[in-house]
């Protein structure tokens, strides 16, 4: 937790399930919470995209960042196009990707808007398949693809990483969606503490 005097940053799931959401680890299924994450949104427009690209060039990022939903990396920071003219910058602790006072791109801090869960284990694809209408086969959904879809009529994001899924749940829905996911996972060996 980030401590600033007596104010602490509390993840929504930590608040709703104190010390409960970290479940017994098993090879079948495992959930982990991502705490204190940083998420900045960059937004631009069709007639400003050239200036935007020029600026991004400085970070020596693979040009795939222009493709929808392909996560590209620069050190620990990741950038991905989430909407036609919006990019998400994840874990930019250096603040490099912040473009203050520029008229071709707008910054927006969304660090507190989502609860991020890492889900791994041999049943993780199956658990997701119970809730999202997405083709999760690796040929269709390779590593470092990030998509937006609906889970129980809530917009969520899925990011396939090397050995796990990173799931972005809107903060206000996170408790409800978490219960749904973990109840589904019980048949695959997840034990609720």
């Amino acid at each position, binding site marked *: 937790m980030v401590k600033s005097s007596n104010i602490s940053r509390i993840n929504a799931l930590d608040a709703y399930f104190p010390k409960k959401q970290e479940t017994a680890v098993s090879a079948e299924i495992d959930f982990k919470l991502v705490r204190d994450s940083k998420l900045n949104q960059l937004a631009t427009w*069709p007639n400003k995209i050239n200036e935007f690209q020029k600026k991004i060039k400085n970070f020596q990022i693979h040009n795939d960042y*222009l493709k*929808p939903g392909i996560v590209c990396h620069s050190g620990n920071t990741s950038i991905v196009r989430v*909407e*036609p003219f919006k990019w998400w910058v994840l874990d930019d602790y250096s603040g490099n990707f912040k473009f203050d006072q520029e008229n071709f791109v707008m910054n927006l801090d969304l660090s507190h808007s989502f609860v991020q869960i890492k889900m791994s284990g041999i049943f993780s694809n199956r658990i997701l398949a119970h809730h999202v209408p997405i083709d999760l086969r690796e040929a269709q959904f390779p590593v470092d693809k990030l998509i*937006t*879809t*609906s889970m129980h009529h809530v*917009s969520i994001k899925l990011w396939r990483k090397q050995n796990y899924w990173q799931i972005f749940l809107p903060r206000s829905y996170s408790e409800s969606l978490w219960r749904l996911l973990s109840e589904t996972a019980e048949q695959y060996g997840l034990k609720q503490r």
Partner: protein
Amino acid sequence: MLQIKCPFCGKRDQTEFSYGGDGQITYPALDADEDSWHDAVFLRQNIYGRQIETWQHSYGCRSWLLVERDTVTHEIFSVKLSHSDWQKQVEKSK
């Protein structure tokens, strides 16, 4: 169950989208006369066959789309981002 091929996200299930309305309406300027506003807001065809309609990829990339669909067979012939500059740029980047 329709599947709509969002130009940004790819082929997705109908449950991710919400239906908008008639995609062939051109809304008049804000200061246009009452008759043209009346027609744009209230007059609708009830097409049997192909029509252009608007959908929003509400649980996906939030884009508004122009979908050409057959109201009888549900066949979808084309899907475009309604914002023409967005459509051009997204096509280019793929």
